[in-house]
């Protein structure tokens, strides 16, 4: 939990069938399990899609960042469709573009290089998490 009492909700997309979807998810897990477990939370994107009350409360009361696996940007659009402004929107493909030597592979499960890229990306996003968590209003 941050000093303001607000968390940063990390929402990856639900893409099945794209490597960058798997990368988006793995990066989210790295952030919430290893890099900033106290400052972050997750919920399922499909819960927002069906307007689940608990999921809506979570995102309405906290900062939200999205990580999308393709330009269709389902995670970003799903949050904005609920009237909530996304604090930071990322595309997993940009993580690869910034680290061309770490090519992710694996649609169902990421390969070792992909997991390494996710770890590097999560470390780089930590700064943004810290900045958001320090803000009062989500």
């Amino acid at each position: 939990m941050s000093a303001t009492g607000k968390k940063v909700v990390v929402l990856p997309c639900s893409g099945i069938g794209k490597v960058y979807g798997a990368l988006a998810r793995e990066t989210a897990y790295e952030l919430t399990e290893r890099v900033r477990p106290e400052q972050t939370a997750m919920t399922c994107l499909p819960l927002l899609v069906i307007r689940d009350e608990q999921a809506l409360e979570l995102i309405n009361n906290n900062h939200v960042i999205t990580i999308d696996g393709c330009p269709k940007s389902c995670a970003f659009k799903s949050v904005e469709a609920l009237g909530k402004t996304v604090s930071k929107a990322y595309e997993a493909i940009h993580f690869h573009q910034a680290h061309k030597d770490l090519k992710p592979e694996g649609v169902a499960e990421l390969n070792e290089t992909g997991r390494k890229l996710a770890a590097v990306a999560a470390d780089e996003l930590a700064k943004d998490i810290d900045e958001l968590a320090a803000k009062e209003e989500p």
Partner: protein
Amino acid sequence: MTGLEVMTKKVGIVSCSGEDLPGGTVSRLASRKVLDELKPGEAVTICLPLFVAGGEEERSFAKNFPTITVDGCEKRCAQKSTEALSGKPGKSLLIPEILNKRGLAAPTRRRNLGPEEREAVRAVAEEIAQAVEELTKR
């Protein structure tokens, strides 16, 4: 729309793919296993957020072909969304029910899957494959 259509008999799998719980991971991996190994060429996956957000290909497919929903938890996001947008699915599967029926332990990991999760993926994939077979025979 002009032009010719090449239609083959297929089933659409709508997986919850929930990112925040192990059941979502099992749902996603089981769906991929069916597509890639058990019933190649007989099914497609329908991306749930894209489906709800109005994805043209997703909605068009679900309108014309039978669907199987696979949910990782009792919230049944995939089933509810499909019912709301394209009518009753041909088959609705709930992972906790499948695992219970087979006497299998509930998965506890969202990633870095262990033997319980692998077994759960195998069992759920078998159920999905059976449902694909039933629906393609109709």
